[in-house]
């Protein structure tokens, strides 16, 4: 293969890195105070919270499924975290969320694998159920924690680095390890590529599906606990608008929604890319509606770029 073709091929698979470099250069030119210590720290903190949710849903996306219920799960867990903090103290916040995420993850996983309901439809239903649970538990409005130390979890710094960033990076490394170096990872890719063939090859696709949805719920629960600690409040409507941007970040990062393609580095870059755009828009003082327009155009633009590079890839392969 000629050098140019090799480059284009690499580009088509890894368009997000290319996009990321462009946006970083743009930020230097346009953003007044983008490359300041304070702003970069802020950017990383934002990326971490979104990123934790994105890690979970990447597993589900790699299988070729979706999970529309992660947003309301984050809300629900933020409410649960606050309730736990009031009754059992600070230490129970994260623990209670993690334990209860087993239930929500199982619900999604079982409905998709054993009952064979289409994931999009299942998670539309569980989305409403989780939002309902959040509202009922919270009594119809956000609940504030009476515990004064509730902020301590989010503001804790390990060796000077905010805990949310540390947790995100740890999760990222563990997730990447799971995907690259374990049999589980290979099986996830196999299922994502072709579910039928994977089943025929002897992989227990039901188990893989359930585990992925459990992971997605686990990540949503951690994010929910963090949000609860950050605000000191459990909000039943917090995550309503998080689902689609998180999924969009992953898709922008290169996770193919048909499954089987993508990895966690790309997820990270996708989330970072979206957050940089939000950050730049906040700095430029864009009108709320101009922001919506920009986000829409960016999403479409990235999808186009993907499609174009995919075409190039196909042409290259055809020429082989």
């Amino acid at each position, binding site marked *: 293969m000629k050098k140019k073709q090799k480059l284009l091929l690499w580009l088509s698979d890894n368009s997000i890195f290319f996009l990321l470099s462009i946006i970083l250069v743009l930020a230097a030119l346009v953003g007044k105070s983008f490359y300041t210590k304070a702003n970069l*720290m*802020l950017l990383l*903190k934002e990326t971490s919270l979104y990123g934790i949710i994105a890690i979970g849903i990447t597993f589900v996306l790699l299988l070729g499924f979706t999970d529309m219920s992660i947003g309301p799960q984050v809300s629900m867990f933020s409410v649960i975290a606050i309730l736990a903090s009031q009754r059992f103290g600070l230490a129970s916040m994260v623990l209670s969320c993690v334990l209860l995420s087993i239930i929500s993850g199982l619900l999604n996983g079982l409905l998709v694998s054993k009952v064979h309901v289409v994931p999009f439809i299942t998670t539309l239903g569980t989305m409403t159920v989780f939002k309902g649970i959040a509202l009922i538990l919270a009594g*119809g409005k*956000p609940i504030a924690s009476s515990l004064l130390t509730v902020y301590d979890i989010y503001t804790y710094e390990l060796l000077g680095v905010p805990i949310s960033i540390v947790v995100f990076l740890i999760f990222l490394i563990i997730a990447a390890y799971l995907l*690259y170096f374990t049999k589980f990872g290979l099986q996830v890719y196999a299922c994502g590529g072709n579910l039928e063939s994977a089943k025929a090859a002897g992989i227990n696709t039901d188990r893989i599906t359930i585990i992925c949805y459990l992971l997605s719920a686990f990540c949503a629960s951690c994010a929910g606990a963090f949000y609860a600690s950050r*605000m000191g409040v459990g909000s039943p409507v917090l995550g309503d608008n998080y689902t689609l941007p998180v999924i969009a970040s992953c898709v922008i990062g290169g996770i193919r929604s048909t499954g089987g393609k993508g990895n966690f*580095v790309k997820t990270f870059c996708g989330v970072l890319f979206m957050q940089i755009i939000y950050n730049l828009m*906040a700095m430029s003082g864009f009108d709320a509606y101009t922001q919506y327009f920009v986000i829409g155009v960016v999403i479409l633009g990235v999808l186009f770029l993907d499609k174009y590079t995919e075409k190039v890839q196909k042409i290259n392969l055809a020429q082989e």
Partner: protein
Amino acid sequence: MKKFLALVLSFILLLSLLASCSGKGETPVTKNSSSTVAAKDGKKTIAYITPDSRSPFPVKYSSAWKEECSKRDWEAVILDGAGDAAKQLSLIESLVAQKVDMICVTPIDSTAIGSGLKIAYDAGIPTMTVNADCDEAFHKYTIGYIGTPNFTFGYRSGECMAEALGNKPDKNIIICSLHDGFQASMDIVDGFKQAIKDKCGNVNYLDEQPGKSDKAISQALMEDWIVKYGDKIDAVFGADDTVAVGCINALKANNMLGKVIVVGAGGDGDGLPAIKNGEMYGTTYQSAAAEVSLVFENIELYFAGKPLQKEEEWKMELPIITKDNVDGYEPAY
């Protein structure tokens, strides 16, 4: 394997970079100091974080904000919280990083905003809550609050309703509130109920459902309520004029307007004509422009090192509008 190692190494590098970056905050702001970093060009940058930009009132508030800033040759930075309390926190942090001169915010959640106010306080940037306040516990981080609590807003409408009902108890009232899960919405309803309790005594609330600031939804709700409760309904409270007018439409279609008393809140372009026509009994007027103007008066005081106006000094009221005085008012939005 190589890729993975590269990933781990770059993360370790990143972590060490961040660790070296952390520094302590600068001296916190004191009530009368104006020792903030001057904005570029010597112009002051006054930032405002809205709660949401899809309802008309915050939109009016933002445009009034821009006007007041340009009057004083200041720069306005307006960011949208889009209904997300966590986003408002991120926006405060972003503004702190940009080193603006003043951050004003209408909190979506009075408790959640606290950690953001603290961050701005620690960084030496003065903050002020407007149109809705933060919790008592966080007042130490702000220079003050200007505005009327949603509770009071609802209370005024409650007073109006009580007057219409002749201050008598045992009436049947239906409440069409705003949104599920938002504090502002709950506060308005709580204020209304308190006023009714104070003036009328015990009443019977037949039902309470969110109209979601959407005429179509509130109209559908009212139609269902009419079917369910019919003649039992004495009065309807719409937590904003849009919702109240939605209810009025349904009542009109069922010829119940003469019998049922409707009170709204806000004084917008839907509500005032309805009062003129006698379809709605009254509403509470909330002028964005008047409030913003008061806010900027106080910002000027702050920068001049003077203390802010006390609540009694505010020349801003929440008038109750009924048929008697409706002609003297322009729609608030």
